[in-house]
């Protein structure tokens, strides 16, 4: 637990020395994955409006909360892998995959405040701030662990992000199918409505309990 809090402290303070030291500690990668998981849970809670909009039951809500966090961590690992690919083959840097995944996961420390995204009216802005903060932590951690300058770390992060975006686009159809299958299994809903679509949906789709006192 102590390692977890000191890692979070090092990440939030953007302390490159402390981040490098934390990577040398035993179970460093596991601790970083834990930070990313809790960050994912907090952010999923912050964005839970979409789960409510899809009328999931409380039991499935909890399932989707933790499932969403796991998927979030998986996405981070993929991002770490694309950064590693971009740094190794694009920037000709010799880097360890573990170190990159550690940096990306530690970067999720600001997302521990992801619950604040739930705040009405301010939440969307807070989410953007957390995204920027998170990127800064990733860049600081990459710079510290790879021994490169900050702009090089930023370049590696952006190159990895772009590579992941290309892969996601190329694999959109099969990935979309898998995502929908996972969504259906976890939520029990056949379709998924996004909040942007919610407004026209409301006019034709009744809430589960439209009439007071019992489901319609």
């Amino acid at each position: 637990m102590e390692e977890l809090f000191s890692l979070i402290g090092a990440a939030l303070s953007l302390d490159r020395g402390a981040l490098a030291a934390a990577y040398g500690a035993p179970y460093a990668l596991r601790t970083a994955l834990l930070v990313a998981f809790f960050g994912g849970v907090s952010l999923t809670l912050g964005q839970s409006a979409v789960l409510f909009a899809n009328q999931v039951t409380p039991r499935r809500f909890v399932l989707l909360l933790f499932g969403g966090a796991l998927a979030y961590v998986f996405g981070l690992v993929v991002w770490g892998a694309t950064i590693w690919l971009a740094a190794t083959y694009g920037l000709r840097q010799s880097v360890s995959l573990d170190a990159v995944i550690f940096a990306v996961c530690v970067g999720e420390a600001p997302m521990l405040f992801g619950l604040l995204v739930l705040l009405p009216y301010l939440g969307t802005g807070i989410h953007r701030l957390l995204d920027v903060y998170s990127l800064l932590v990733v860049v600081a951690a990459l710079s510290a662990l790879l021994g490169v300058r900050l702009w090089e770390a930023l370049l590696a992060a952006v190159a990895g992000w772009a590579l992941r975006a290309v892969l996601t686009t190329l694999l959109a159809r099969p990935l979309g199918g898998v995502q929908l299958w996972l969504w259906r299994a976890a939520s029990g809903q056949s379709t998924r409505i996004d909040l942007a679509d919610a407004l026209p949906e409301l006019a034709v789709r009744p809430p589960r309990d439209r009439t007071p006192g019992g489901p319609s």
Partner: protein
Amino acid sequence: MTIVGWLADSAVTLLGIGLVAVLLMAALAPLEALGWWAGWWGREAYTPVRNRPPQTQGNDAATERPEHFVVYLSGLGTASKEWRFPEEAAFADRLQQWLGRAVVIDDVFAYAVTIRDLGEARLSRRLWEMVKTARLTNPDTMLGWLVMARNAFRIAVSVDHRYGPFFNLSNAETIREALVAHGYELGSGQRVTLIGYSGGGQMVVAATTFLTQLLNAPVRVISIGGSISSDPGLLWAEHTTHLCGDDDPIDKISDAVFAGRWPLLRKSEYNTAIAKGCLTFISLGPIGHTGTRGYYGSDPLPDGTPRLEYTVALVADLITAESPKRPAQPTSDQLGG
């Protein structure tokens, strides 16, 4: 150690606790409407508290259909549909008298979904009951700020594009129930007028999107010093008239707080509604937001007209006007009546 000394030593801790409490209060605000939509809990049905029968001209009141259906939503200081600020009660009563064959409904509590008023919130029942009791004895009690903060977060929920549709739909459903309870015939296509004062301005505009669809009838909106965001309801309403006193700071605050009102965002609902003539403004002159110099205040205007009478006359004219875009200013005869 004295109490003052202890307070000084603990100031940072107390501020921290206060900040966390406020953040928690704000973060939990959207859950009520979202949980209702998801079917986690039910919404309380509307039950009338006050019944103002329309003033009929003949003897057979039952067969005479009201000419106007008006729903009034209070500002964010309200904690209950049973209790009203005396000046708001006076406004609703005067409006009813002025309109005659009309139904004026002012017992819809717009700041909650699952409860009828704050005193029914199970978790915080004692706290809100204490606030309500304090309010009954002293309308200006400091505890009122707690209610205002709590309701302000509901306005933020209504404004937020992620939560607003659910919260505003629930308000529209409550308003529909209130209208039906007071004799409105669904399917009649009869126009409904929504009036919102202060925070109620946002609530009525936001509910309009759904109320128009639920009733399949035109909805006219009147905002009295309302704090209105850039909401799709402005484009769903038959017309929205925003009344604002020169001494009321709410409009300037809303201009700053709601990005959709910034002139830069020309395509926002707010700016589109102005461009299309769906939203018009009427300046009420030297009138403030609250108190004796407010919209419902007892102080007379420079020409001797009581502020309350002036506001009532103008609102009545907007309700009865054939064309909502060109409301007639009340004449001195009307103000005397």
